[in-house]
């Protein structure tokens, strides 16, 4: 089932700020949860990656709140009927987590999430007829594009692991 895009349902600048804020807040929640999972499974390298990603999203979330000024983005996001039914474009896929995953896998999750967010804001910028919404959506699009580039740069430091990355010499097996 594909994630629903509500780009066409942004009808005011307040809607855009609220949705953008919610996207980042949800992304922070996901990365924190992934970091917690990796703490539980003693994968400190991944904990650091997910905490860094969470911090980056939190900075973006706080920046959006600042830009929104007097708009109560949290309350406004709750009021958006279109938001509650679908999934946030930038949320990492928790179902892809694995206890032996590597930074490359974490960055692949992040890359997919950033690319969805980029597509989301691009769609708004290209379809809205409101010049203010268009201008702000373009700003968000540029930021997401920068995030995509950042993840690509990080991936150069963390190349794809060998096929045996998930090999566990003491794996969980069905009881016999």
């Amino acid at each position, binding site marked *: 089932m594909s994630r629903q895009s509500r780009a066409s349902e942004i009808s005011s600048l307040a809607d855009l700020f609220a949705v953008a804020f919610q996207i980042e807040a949800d992304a922070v929640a996901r990365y924190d949860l992934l970091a917690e999972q990796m703490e*539980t499974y003693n994968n400190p390298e991944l904990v650091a990656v997910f905490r860094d990603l969470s911090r980056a999203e939190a900075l973006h979330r706080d920046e959006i709140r600042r830009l929104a000024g007097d708009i109560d983005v949290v309350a406004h996001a709750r009021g958006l009927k279109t938001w509650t039914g679908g999934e946030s474009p930038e949320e990492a896929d*928790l179902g892809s987590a694995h206890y032996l995953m590597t930074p490359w896998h974490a960055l692949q999750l992040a890359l997919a999430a950033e690319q969805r967010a980029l597509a989301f804001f691009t769609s708004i910028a290209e379809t809205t007829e409101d010049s203010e919404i268009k201008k702000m959506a373009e700003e968000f699009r540029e930021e997401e594009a920068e995030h995509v580039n950042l993840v690509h740069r990080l991936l150069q430091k963390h190349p794809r692991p060998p096929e045996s990355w998930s090999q566990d010499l003491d794996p*969980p097996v069905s009881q016999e």
Partner: protein
Amino acid sequence: MSTAEMRVACKPADYKSDIKPIWCPGCGDYHVLMSFTRVFAELGLPPEQIVVVSGIGCSSRIPAYTNCYGFHGVHGRSLALAAGLKVTRPDLTVVVASGDGDGYSIGGNHFLHACRRNIDMTYVVMDNRVYGMTKGQPSPTTEPSFDSALSPGGTGLRPFHPLVIALASGANFIARCFSGLPNETAAILGEAIRHPGFSFVEILSPCVTFRPDEKEWKDLVRSAPVPATNDPAKAARRIMTDDGFNLGILYRGDRRPYQPSVPRPNADLSELEKEFEL
């Protein structure tokens, strides 16, 4: 929901406890926890007005991970506990969490009668079609062809159909969700909690360790093609003919919830405690 007038401004994180979940990374139950905290925040319920009751199993660990009142109960008996609680404290919002083994096998009989009684609570079953906590035994919803060390060549058994059973037994609200869509799940959980009577929500929640094949569910699930009905006959046809991957509210009944008049105890708590002194 009986505490609508008590809305508070809480964030989802306010409903999360400090205890870190120990589910396997990738487990669908993480998403379900996320849906729980999101819907509680959305409903604006104070944590102390919510009780999450569970039985035994991976999914039943969820009360510990919330900041609400919780009861990690006896295997298969979560509904019995929850029914007693809701009858005596109708002011509380009661959410019951279970899995396919706990809820449909060990607790199968309680499931039937909870549907029949139609007490105003929400029953959430995280269905991964396997006993995950005890290392991969087939559960009532496991496919007959599931080939494992414990079921060589498959079980050959027809799976239990919980939604049909719920409808036939009198559940007043029936829905199916997929854990990988936590916002959509939260929205449906909100409808289930608000709906009077016994609401049953089956959440397809993959077990990535003992059923890695369930990772494919995200590509199989789809929104139900038709809106919810209040006609049990239509709902029965719909539920019996779908392939188990249609998501959404499938039945929204209008039976009056069962709420017996139970006098509030007038004994002092310390008097009750004396009865348990050793």
